């Protein structure tokens, strides 16, 4: 496969995805969604709109029983749970709202956690150091237990961890909700510029419309259900 056709394959593709909890009406019905490599999408949704479920589906935690999700062309519906875990380790980065780090591991160990589960990440340790440096975390913090860091610092470590394997997709679930205005701005810029450098596609979910400004593409959950494409 040449680099040209590679670029043609969407980083993320949803095909007639339907999800419902047993015995309930469908929570999610997404006819179609395509995100190109490097595309950053803001998804706006109020609580209860199925955001969390969508993220669990995208990350391969929940199996997609109806429809399909393709990560860089790889169909998730065709994969076993173990294979989906594997795919998540090597191709998907996740950043939570807060408490992204295992408190008893050091900063560096937290970033390298991915390499324990992903297929071999080339020069993982070097890359971890590079990312931490780029994200403005001083070297003396790297060996400190993660719970000694401020929330802002912890969220930056979370970006480093999510991007360690140069994933095709970065999923962010309101990562700025615990940050004040100044830190939030700084965080968004760092995250998006690093993702851009990695060529990683970003799906950013939030109920805070103020964050729209950082994105070129945005959708709300209702549009998603109608199959509107980001443009």
């Amino acid at each position, binding site marked *: 496969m040449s680099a040209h056709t590679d670029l043609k394959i969407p980083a993320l593709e949803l095909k007639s995805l339907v999800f419902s909890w047993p015995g309930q009406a469908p929570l999610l019905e997404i006819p179609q969604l395509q995100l190109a490599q490097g595309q950053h999408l803001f998804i706006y949704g109020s609580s209860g709109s199925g955001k*969390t479920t969508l*993220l*669990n589906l995208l*990350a391969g*935690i*929940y199996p997609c029983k109806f429809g399909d999700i393709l990560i860089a062309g790889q169909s998730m519906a065709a994969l076993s*749970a*173990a294979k989906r*875990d*594997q795919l*998540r*380790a*090597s191709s*998907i980065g*996740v950043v*939570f709202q807060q*408490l*992204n*780090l*295992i*408190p*008893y*591991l050091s900063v560096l*160990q937290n970033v390298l*956690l*991915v390499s*324990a*589960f*992903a297929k071999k990440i080339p020069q993982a340790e070097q890359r971890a150091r590079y990312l931490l440096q780029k994200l403005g975390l001083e070297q003396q913090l790297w060996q400190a237990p993660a719970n000694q860091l401020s929330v802002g610092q912890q969220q930056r470590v979370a970006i480093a*961890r999510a991007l360690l394997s140069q994933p095709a997709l970065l999923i962010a*679930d309101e990562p700025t909700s615990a940050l004040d205005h100044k830190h939030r701005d700084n965080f968004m810029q760092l995250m998006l510029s690093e993702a851009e450098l990695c060529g990683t596609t970003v799906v950013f979910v939030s109920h805070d419309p103020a964050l729209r400004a950082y994105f070129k593409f945005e959708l709300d959950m209702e549009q998603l259900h109608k199959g509107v494409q980001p443009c």
Partner: protein
Amino acid sequence: MLMQLARASLWNRKGTVLMTVISLTISIALLLGIDHIRHEAKSSFTSTVSGTDLIVGARSSQLNLLLYSVFRIGNATNNIGWQNYKQVKTHPQVAWSIPLSLGDSHRGYRVIGTNEDYFKFYQYGEKQPLKLAQGKVFAGVYQAVLGSVVAQKLGYQLGEQIILSHGVGSVSFAQHKDKPFEVVGILAATGTPVDQSVHIPLEGIEAIHLGWQGGGMPAPGRSISAEQSLAMDLEPKVITAYMLGLKSKMATFAVQRQLNEFKGEPLSAILPGVALAELWQMLSMVENMLLLITVLVIVATLVGIVTTLLAGLKERQREMAILRAVGAPASTVFLLIELELLLMALLSIGSAFIILVAGLWGFRELLASQYGLFISINPWHDQTGILLAAVLGLTLLLGAIPAFLAYRRALASGLMVRL
């Protein structure tokens, strides 16, 4: 990686982990200790007498004969004739014999009337002969050799005079006051009932009972003084039992049958090994109960630990979600919890061993001197490995409950744990 995680996670909760390890250490040390004492008791019990091929007494059950002749417990049903004993001694298969005359005591300790062959041929443990710690074997009629516990508990020195009592109670109204015995020797500790015995010559037994009739004290004015006794014939008329060493082990059953069919009087000849095993069978009920209780203590401890783990699961939900997010399969969550338990159990087993060995080492002197117990410092026996494997197995089995719950929760709640 999982190992590193488990170690770091345990270290992070070191307070709880320490308490868990302490409680598990105590119960495992208890288990190992009980098991060890069981083995030691059995080996010390079965080594109470060794090298003796047959024990012969008046017709009775083999347990009764064993109990009074070796363990100094209970009483003989009857005496046996001295002349018959002398006859058996001449049997071509008999290598040596030890006559035993029982029935008297000294302040609760049994008096054994015997002869110098006792100190020559009596063996215990791995065929160890008796050794004198101080003094010498009795040579005169009114001399006594004490077991180590008797000497120590009653504080007797060589040269001291002791008075024997008639009968075997610790309080006796019939005392052999007129014929005191001089302590001439003290035996080294053996860890057997020998330590609790007072040994005097058969002639001594005969002498103190001169003039006694039908087990009663002599009538006033008819008692015979110690000096007078020496001039009289002190050859015993009866003894209680005797031990035989045979020239050939092969002859044991033949000689036993001959003795059991002895024409002169009804005798019972027993094989001490067989009788000891039978007695141990009865006693082992108790120690099996003890072991069972210990196992239950371990189960209770483990249930407590699992409860603590279950209570802590909610706090760790976040941690598990992070592991899932970086691509850990849900099984990692299960394995992590089991591995942590395994580490704690191994740590507990290690410290239980250290505590046990240190304890045995520390109390070794005390046990030997105060109780005549000789307990080996090494608590490892053939089945200890199996026992410990069972403890580990049980730990993992019970640990599977919280581990499985955490696994299920990790599958269901996904990445976005709302706190």
